[in-house]
């Protein structure tokens, strides 16, 4: 049985296209692995951008922090985070990977806070890390792929308690399924192997139209599995699980 730490990055990599520019931010081991995987498999000309300001780095080892100097290795140029935000703001960033503590039916995310008494946002019940660049990137990148290593009704909520941002969400990759945004709402596109459709429904905070006829996420191929082992031999991505 294929585990999430193997399937999720492979599914994320499959979504990437050759030649496009792809960005991930802080705290993004799975996007880091997925991008390197896609470059190795079907997207050698993909342009890999990240907060270190490198382009197409070739890390000697994968770091735990995705702002680590390891992701600057073998770059041939240096830009700033400002340059990457500008790129997105002027409509030239093809794909961004983002995540959310809460993700709702419309693809809105919450990375900011759970409001306190009476909806107080300045004295929140829970202060979350913050959306980093999400509120700038998600509405301006041509598309955003969300990912989350947990799929339950606390994470996938009908409506986020606080909307850090909405935006151009294309897909959401979870341990249970791939969701695709159609007419502004997230629908289940494929259910992962060995996952029961009833489980997807039960663990999602809004009604998802799934049954046994819902398409299945293709199993990882031998080539994909081998490439994943080569890209992340130390299983650094496991810190997300």
């Amino acid at each position, binding site marked *: 049985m294929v585990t999430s730490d193997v399937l999720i990055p492979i599914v994320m990599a499959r979504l990437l296209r050759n030649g496009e520019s792809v960005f991930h931010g802080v705290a993004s081991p799975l996007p880091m692995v997925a991008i390197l995987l896609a470059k190795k498999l079907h997207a050698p000309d993909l342009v890999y951008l990240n907060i270190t300001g490198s382009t197409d780095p070739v890390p000697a080892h994968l770091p735990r922090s995705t702002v680590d100097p390891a992701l600057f290795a073998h770059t041939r140029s*240096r830009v700033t985070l*400002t340059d990457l935000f500008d790129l997105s703001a002027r409509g030239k960033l093809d794909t961004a990977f983002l995540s959310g503590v809460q993700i709702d039916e419309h693809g809105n995310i919450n990375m900011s806070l759970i409001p306190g008494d009476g909806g107080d946002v300045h004295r929140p019940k829970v202060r979350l890390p913050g959306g980093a*660049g999400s509120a700038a990137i*998600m509405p301006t990148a041509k598309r955003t792929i969300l990912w989350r290593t947990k799929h339950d009704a606390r994470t996938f909520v009908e409506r986020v308690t606080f909307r*850090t*941002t909405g935006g151009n969400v294309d897909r959401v990759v979870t341990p249970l399924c791939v969701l695709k945004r159609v007419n502004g709402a997230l629908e289940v596109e494929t259910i992962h192997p060995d996952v029961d459709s009833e489980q997807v429904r039960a663990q999602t905070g809004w009604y998802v139209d799934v049954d046994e006829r819902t398409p299945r996420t293709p199993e990882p191929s031998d080539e994909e599995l081998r490439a994943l082992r080569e890209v992340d031999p130390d299983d650094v991505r496991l810190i997300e699980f």
Partner: protein
Amino acid sequence: MRNKLTSLQDAIALVSNDAVVALGGNTLHRAPIAAVHELIRQHKHGLNIVKTAGAYDVDILCGAGVASAVSAGFIGYENVFGMAQLYRSAVEQGRVRANEHACYSVIAGLRAATQGVPFMPVNAFALSDVPLAQGYRKVADPYSDEEVYAMPAIKPDVAIIHVHEADADGNGRIYGSLFEDVLMVTAAKRVILTAEKIVDGATFEAQPELTSISGFMVDHVVHAPRGAHPCSCHGIYDVDLAFLSDFSAHTQSPKQFEEWLSQHVSSAKC
């Protein structure tokens, strides 16, 4: 240019309480930690910390009662150590105000200060609750009437930047990631560089294109070897995971944190 070399103590003594302080680096990388620890030793308070994405630096300043506001897009240890507990409880308990940003909006505010204008239009927040929560306003393009968010200028009283090499004139070289450090330099009223190494400025003449920060924009230069530790400094040292792990374990209770502070910061010589 005049000689700008000074001690860490003297440079930090010039930071007033309630100052707006921009810190260079990003998450666990090249943050000016020697200066952060000195801010704690000098019992500063009321600081508004400006950063795009912070970690240990912002967390410890919140825990030590130095910060009373944080203007940033992200505060956390990425996936390495979970939440920034000191920051989180300070905000939840109302001791620190979190001025929520989108990283890019911090950049926009710093750009406004750099350019001597009161605000900066920013293509962000189109679909966000943040502007309402923070009171960010829109402005209409006078040519097309198109509306866009306007970030008020963020003019740090001081920017503190850790660099690889600096000379006595304040020229600074940063290898690897620049993050938003140069923008912080131009936006701030006063600039402190802490440097791994002080070099003879003549060595910069061979490749002036490698100088990241121009000396005439800098006020003070401090020699601070390992001045980013426990954060990384590109090409010199990595993130000190053991140190941070120990720190993280001591942030679960105020008493443990006090002990940790007293052992690792208050009594330390810089």
